């Protein structure tokens, strides 16, 4: 039951993009087409689950054990950067089709604040390892969900007659705001 609460809360109620403001850059950047949005969503899900597992182990068995929790930020960002590189190399060798699909998004993920943000949130919320993994996966699915909905809206938005000054980013931000308003309707489920 606790896992169900974590999943519903991470996907709908506290959606990582629309209510926590994590990962806005890819949300704005790669949401012009549904296909790229799906690719980015899959890449983020993959890396986020892997990264939160690794950072959790580092927190428990290195940082806490030696009493150096203040190095959290430095340790996490380095681990995530290295992990993304590693995933890229392994994917290229092991599964070329998957690399073809996700490859272009991987370098962008290092500076995606959602990955670091979720890794830190798991520690702040005192989750166990399994809860942390479920939370990371659900957050990433929430990210992909918001990204795909937003991409669908933007594909239609291209055909609309938007006032000149509002074209591009401004109208996209206003649309994201209305989407966030819709997601606020989920508050109270959990």
């Amino acid at each position, binding site marked *: 039951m606790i896992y169900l609460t974590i999943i519903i809360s991470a996907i709908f109620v506290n959606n990582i993009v*629309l*209510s*926590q*403001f*994590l*990962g*806005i*850059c890819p949300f*704005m950047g790669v949401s012009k087409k549904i296909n790229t949005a799906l690719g980015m969503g899959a890449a983020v899900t993959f890396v986020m689950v892997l990264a939160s597992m690794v950072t959790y182990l580092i927190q428990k068995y290195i940082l806490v054990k030696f009493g150096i929790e*203040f*190095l*959290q*930020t*430095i340790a996490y*960002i*380095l681990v995530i*950067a290295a992990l993304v590189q590693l995933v890229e190399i392994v994917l290229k060798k092991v599964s070329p089709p998957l690399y073809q699909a996700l490859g272009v998004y991987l370098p962008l993920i290092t*500076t*995606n*604040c959602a990955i*670091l*943000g979720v890794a*830190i*949130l798991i520690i*702040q919320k005192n989750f166990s390892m399994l809860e942390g993994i479920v939370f990371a996966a659900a957050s990433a699915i929430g990210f992909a969900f918001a990204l795909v909905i937003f991409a669908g809206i933007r594909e239609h938005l291209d055909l609309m007659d938007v006032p000149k*000054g*509002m074209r591009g*980013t*401004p*109208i*996209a*931000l*206003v649309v*994201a*705001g*209305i989407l*966030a*308003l819709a*997601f*606020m309707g989920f508050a109270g489920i959990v």
Partner: protein
Amino acid sequence: MTLKDNFIKGFFKENAVFVLLLGLCPTLATSSSAINGLGMGLATTFVLVMSNIVISLVKNQIPDKVRIPSFIVIIASFVTVVDLVMSGFLPDLHSSLGLFIPLIVVNCIVLGRAEAFASKNNILDSLIDGVSMGLGFAMALTILGSIREILGAGTIFGIDLSIYPTDEKGAPVTMLMFILAPGAFIVLGYLIALINKIRNV
């Protein structure tokens, strides 16, 4: 390019938030009030200035292939400094900015300036660049925070403007939406549209 041109470029012409659209996550998340926006802006300015200085000092010692990880370590060190100092001296601000203090590390403005400017220029220019970019960011966050605070709570920097009617219990009836998530997107959208309009005229 003179120092003054350099400053105006970063502060206004290439304003990180309104023109380059960098660092949108902290912009949206920490601008729920004017004071939060200003605090986040100044924290980022400190990291930006210090990392620009250090990177421009060590730029010739770092091998080209490992420069990005090296920059990230330098930036992360200063973020840790800000995090610890803020939790010691400004605990209220620290708890309201929360997660977004460690996330300064992945703010694209900081790494962007390190890579695009500090790794190619001397200390003085890099210092000015960091100050102007950082203050431009702080200005943008403060403007956004002020608008959201006025609309959403009827206050600015915590001072009550009493612009909203009160209900029978005496509490002001405000547009709470502007303090919550949707307001951030919508206010920033209209602000950028306004800036586009001004720049094109």
